[in-house]
């Protein structure tokens, strides 16, 4: 549905986006991650036809965004980083204008505007001026504008930025509901958001793609070993020999220790699940098992690892 092939964007000597390629299947949500200035917005602006790429090509719904710009734009909804609102228009007037320039006929215009407003929950401010709205409402009116013409592809630049926690949850729900009918690319800084809403992730840093995968695969791929946190009460005995003799365990370290309990970090091969063995060893030694938690590498860690290791190459 969305195809980006070797897209490069240069501003004079500065390369904002360097040879970026990825594709999004129909009905999927792609998360676009990267630190500030990584080239996320530039890539999105190329996809929406706001700026042309220096090299490479991009296609939306089978239409080249440069060669067949009008056809591609007709099928794309775009929410820029700052919602493009006219402060002197009311929300209804604004959405009606957006419907007009998106070639929605006057017969269905009213109905489309109403449905977009109800989907994004902005009906209660329909007659307020856009300039007087709170950040959360602005964001949602911007989103209403993007989904108004029922586009195949939605490109959302930080759709949850500036929303309060309740609105963030609502917006995520809305985005999830929109997937299926729409193919969505969303950029964000909030990593759990990607884990919760996206089927695939593109991590971009300094204009280059550093990883493309599903959130789960990314987590397991970058995790060389599993770490399990174990808290146990050995009544004074040393647990190290017994625990490290379990097959598959590669390293054991005591991270915390006091009279009543000890906390261990048990590392193991990624292939072997040592949790059962670990539990039975502890129980058969007559120790008390207080806690056993697998520590997974969070997307934050992956993100940091990918974006900072990139830096050390230079």
């Amino acid at each position, binding site marked *: 549905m969305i195809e980006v092939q070797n897209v490069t964007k240069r501003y004079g000597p500065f390369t904002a986006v360097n040879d970026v390629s990825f594709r999004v299947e129909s009905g999927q949500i792609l998360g676009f991650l990267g630190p500030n200035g990584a080239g996320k917005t530039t890539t999105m602006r190329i996809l*929406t036809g706001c700026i042309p790429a220096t090299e490479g090509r991009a296609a939306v719904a089978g239409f080249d965004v440069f060669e067949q710009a009008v056809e591609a734009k007709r099928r794309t909804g775009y929410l820029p980083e700052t919602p493009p609102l006219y402060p002197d228009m009311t929300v209804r007037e604004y959405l009606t204008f957006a419907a007009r320039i998106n070639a929605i006929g006057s017969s269905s215009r009213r109905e489309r505007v109403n449905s977009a407003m109800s989907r994004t929950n902005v009906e209660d401010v329909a007659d307020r001026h856009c300039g007087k709205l709170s950040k959360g409402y602005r964001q949602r009116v911007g989103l209403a504008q993007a989904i108004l013409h029922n586009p195949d592809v939605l490109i959302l630049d930080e759709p949850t930025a500036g929303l309060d926690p309740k609105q963030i949850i609502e917006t995520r729900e809305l985005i999830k509901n929109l997937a299926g009918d729409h193919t969505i690319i969303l950029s964000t800084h909030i990593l759990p958001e990607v884990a919760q809403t996206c089927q695939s992730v593109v991590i971009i840093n300094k204009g280059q793609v550093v990883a493309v995968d599903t959130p789960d695969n990314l987590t397991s791929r970058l995790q060389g070993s599993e770490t399990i946190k174990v808290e146990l009460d050995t009544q004074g005995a040393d647990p190290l020999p017994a625990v490290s003799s379990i097959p598959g365990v590669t390293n054991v370290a005591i991270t915390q220790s006091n009279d009543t309990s000890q906390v261990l970090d048990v590392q193991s091969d990624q292939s072997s699940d040592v949790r059962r063995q670990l539990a039975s060893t502890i129980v058969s030694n007559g120790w008390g098992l207080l806690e056993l938690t697998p520590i997974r590498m969070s997307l934050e860690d992956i993100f940091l690892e990918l974006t900072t290791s990139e830096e050390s190459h230079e």
Partner: protein
Amino acid sequence: MSNILAIAQKELRSYFVSPIAYVFIGFFALLYGYFFAVSLTFLVRVSMQAGMGMGGPQTVNINEYMMRPLLGNTAVIMLLVLPLMTMRTYAEEKRSGTIELLLSSPLTGVQIIIGKFLGVVTLFTVMLAVTLIHVAILFMYGEPELGPILSGYLGLWLMGGAFISIGLLISSITKNQMVAGMGTFFVLLLLWVISWIGDPASGSTTTQLLGYLSILDHFEDFSKGVIDTKHLAYYLSVITFGLFLTAKSVESEQWRG
């Protein structure tokens, strides 16, 4: 076409929901009224002198002694007012980011530009139409010739179109309204006085060329009641060329970022 109208209406609307349109129309009418009164006083003095046989022409021509200087003064007001009307067209959209709504919508750059141009031209036409009240008063109490007045207004309207076209171009270059307004004013002023540097007596090619470029010289004939295709072509080509360059400027902005 419907797309162009949508943009034109949006532009026009943005003037009328704020006091901007009323300030423009009101002050334009006020200044026009002032110059009307001044010209009228002058006309009365000249005709009294003529009546008393103190020299001057035997019959006083209203068009010659009143309308021509009045339309010339109106052109000066336009020089000051129109840059203020066009300065926000692109600069403001770029500053606030709303330009992205237009650029990502299925409109072509040319549709956006023509829409904006028509929006501003409509407001300008309203401003000019309001001044016709004075002309109507003139017809009630005097017998001016209609032809030169109509051609004079046509000239003003075309000159306004040229000003707006140049104003759009300069607004499309910058994000800053002040820079757009001042820039437009200076460019228009330069085009206004560009022929002053040449020596009319010499009749050299340079003088002729500068005279041809001058936005004011082409208005002279219109105010005399002459509609010359040469002058029509000049204003229409300035408008077209200005809009064309605006399209190119917006496009190159996209390439440069």
